[in-house]
C-alpha cells in the first residue's frame, strides 16, 4: 500500500494580534506552520500504514521554506517527503495547484490512496483535494470522518454532510479529504523529530514531474485575484452592559428587541 498525503504550509494564527482600530487580526510577521487540518490527514495516513502496511509519502507545493512543514510530516510518521518548488509554480490557483500535485503524485507512483486535510486555513477553498481527484480521474470522498475498511481494491468511508452522513465505497486509487474528528494526531517523539531533520527531501521542478509549464503558475491559472482589501471594520463602539444579573439581562433583552431578534417568536 502506498499512501500520499498532500499538505500545505500556512501562516500561523497563534501569535496574531487584534488591531485596536479595525478589530481585525493583524497578519504581519506571522510564522509559518503546517496547515492544522493536514495533521489529521498525516495521522490517518500513518495509522492506515500501521494497520495495513506500506509507506506514507508527504508532498507539498510551495517555497523552499515549505520543507519545514514536510519535516514535521516525517517526524509524525511519514516515510518520505517531496517538495514541488520552483518559480514556475508561483501564483498557481487551485486548478493549477491541483494539476501540479496530481503530477507529483503520478511521479511518486503506485499510490493507492491520497489523503488531504479538509481545507487549508489560509485560502479556505477546499478545492485542491477534489481538484487532484479530477486531474487523476480518481474517485473522491470529502469530509471523511471515519475509514471503515481498506484493502487493495476498495475503501469504505463515512463522510459528513449538513444533514447527517453517508457510508460510501470507493474503488482505489482514490482521494480523501478528512475532517478533524477522524482521529487524534500524535505528538512526535524527540527521536523522530531529530531523525526528520536529517532526512533528505528531494525538490522537484516542473520538468522533474512532467508538468506542462503551460498549466502551472500565475498566467495559465483560470482565476486571477484582482483586488484584496481589508474587510469593512466592525462598527467601532462597543456597548458595555454591566450591573446585577437581572439588570444586565433586561438591558440585553431590550437591545435584542431593538435589533429585531425577538420578533416572530
Amino acid at each position, binding site marked *: 500500500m502506498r499512501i500520499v498525503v498532500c499538505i500545505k504550509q500556512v501562516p500561523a494564527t497563534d501569535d496574531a494580534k487584534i488591531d485596536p482600530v479595525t478589530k481585525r487580526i493583524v497578519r504581519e510577521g506571522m510564522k509559518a506552520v503546517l496547515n492544522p487540518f493536514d495533521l489529521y490527514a498525516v495521522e490517518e495516513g500513518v495509522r492506515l500504514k500501521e494497520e495495513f502496511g506500506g509507506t506514507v509519502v508527504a508532498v507539498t507545493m510551495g517555497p523552499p521554506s515549505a520543507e519545514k512543514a514536510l519535516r514535521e510530516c516525517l517526524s509524525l510518521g511519514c516515510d518520505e517527503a517531496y517538495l514541488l518548488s520552483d518559480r514556475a509554480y508561483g501564483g498557481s490557483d487551485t486548478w493549477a495547484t491541483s494539476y501540479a500535485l496530481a503530477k507529483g503524485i503520478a511521479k511518486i507512483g503506485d499510490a493507492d490512496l491520497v489523503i488531504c486535510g479538509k481545507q487549508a486555513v489560509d485560502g479556505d477553498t477546499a478545492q485542491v483535494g477534489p481538484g487532484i*481527484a479530477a486531474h487523476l480521474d480518481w474517485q473522491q470522498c470529502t469530509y471523511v470522518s471515519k475509514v471503515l475498511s481498506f484493502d487493495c481494491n476498495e475503501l469504505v468511508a463515512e463522510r459528513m454532510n449538513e444533514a447527517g452522513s453517508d457510508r*460510501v465505497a470507493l474503488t482505489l486509487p482514490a482521494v480523501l479529504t478528512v475532517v478533524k474528528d477522524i482521529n487524534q494526531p500524535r505528538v512526535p517523539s524527540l527521536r523522530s523529530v531529530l531523525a526528520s531533520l536529517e532526512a533528505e527531501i528531494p525538490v522537484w521542478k516542473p520538468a522533474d514531474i512532467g508538468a506542462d509549464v503551460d498549466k502551472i503558475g500565475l498566467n495559465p491559472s483560470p482565476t486571477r485575484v484582482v483586488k484584496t482589501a481589508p474587510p469593512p471594520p466592525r462598527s467601532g463602539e462597543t456597548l458595555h*452592559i454591566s450591573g446585577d444579573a437581572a439588570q444586565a439581562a433586561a438591558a*440585553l433583552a431590550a437591545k435584542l428587541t431593538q435589533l429585531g431578534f425577538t420578533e416572530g417568536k
Partner: protein
Amino acid sequence: MILTNEIPKEAYRNIWILAEMNGEAISPVTHELLGAARGLAEARGADVVAVVLGSGFESTVEDLAAYGADSVIYADDKRLAAYNDELEANLLTRLIKAYRPEVFLGAATARGRALIPRLAVKTVSGLTADCTELTIDAETGELHQTRPAFGGNLMATIKTPNHRPQMATVRPRVMKALDPDYTRSLQSIVREEILPEETENIKRILETVREHQGAVNLGDAQIIVSGGRAMKGPEGFKMLQALADKLGAAVGASRPCIDAGWMPYAHQIGQTGQTVQTKLYIACGISGQIQHLVGMQGCDTIIAIDKNPNTPLMQMADVAVCGDVFEIVPELTKLL
C-alpha cells in the same frame, strides 16, 4: 491561453445555478442562488437556468420560476438520490459542454464544495469558493467575485478572464432570495438522462444517514448562541440550548469544549471547526482565542457575556455584557 477549452468566450451565455437538494425536496438555498443569478442575468440580458439533479422532485421544478428561473434542465433518477461526486460531475460536464453557460453558481455546502471543484477541473473553468458578493460587467460578462480569505481577514476580488463558464460557490444565507412571483412561468423544461458511460468509475453509496430533527446545521443558522470553557460542562450547554430555543438559534462551542467532550465536533466554531457568518452571535464565557475569532468575526452583530471585561472577545464585541453567564443567561431566557 493553452488552458482554455478553445471555444470563444462569446459562445457562452446564460447564468446557471445548480439546485441544492434536501432529500427529494429542492433546498431553500436554491432560491438564494436564483436571486443572485437574476441580477446577473438582467445585467447581461441573459436567462437564468436552474439545473436540478436528484430523485423524486420532478413535480416541483415549475416552482423555481417564481424565484427567478427562466428555464430548468434536470435529471430525475434514483441513482441521483444520494450525492455521488463522480456521477454528478460526469453528467454536468456533458451539460456544460453542450449548453455553454457563461456563469455557473452553486451552494458552498458539503456537496457543492466537493462537486464543483471536480467539475471546474474537468471543464477547465475558474472557480471561486464562498463568494459573498457577485457583480458582472454588463459588456464583457466578466464576473467579479468577492470572497473572504484568511478566516475573514482579507476580502479578495477574483476574476476569471479567459475561461468559461465562470464558476462560483455561495454560502447559504449570504445571497437574498426574491419574493416569489407565482405569475412567472418557465420558458422551457429540459429533461436529461444519465448516459451509461457516466456511471463508469463512480463510487457506491452504501447508506445515507439523516440525523433527526434538531441536528446542528450551523451554516444554516441566522443566530448562534455559543459557549466556551467557562460553561464548565455539558450542563452549561443545556442552559445555552434553552436560550437558543427562545431565539430560534443554533448552539455553537469553542474548541476546548469539544476537546473536553461537552459537545460534539459538529458544534465547533473556529479555525478547525466551522466558520460562521450569522446575523447574531452570542458568545457566552468564550475568551476569544484567535482560533475562535477567525471562525466568527464575520458575524453581523456580536454579543459577548463574560465575567472578565478584558478578553479579546469582550473587546471585539458590539455588545459586551460583564457578568456571570450562569446568572445572566437564565434571566435573559426568562425575559424573551
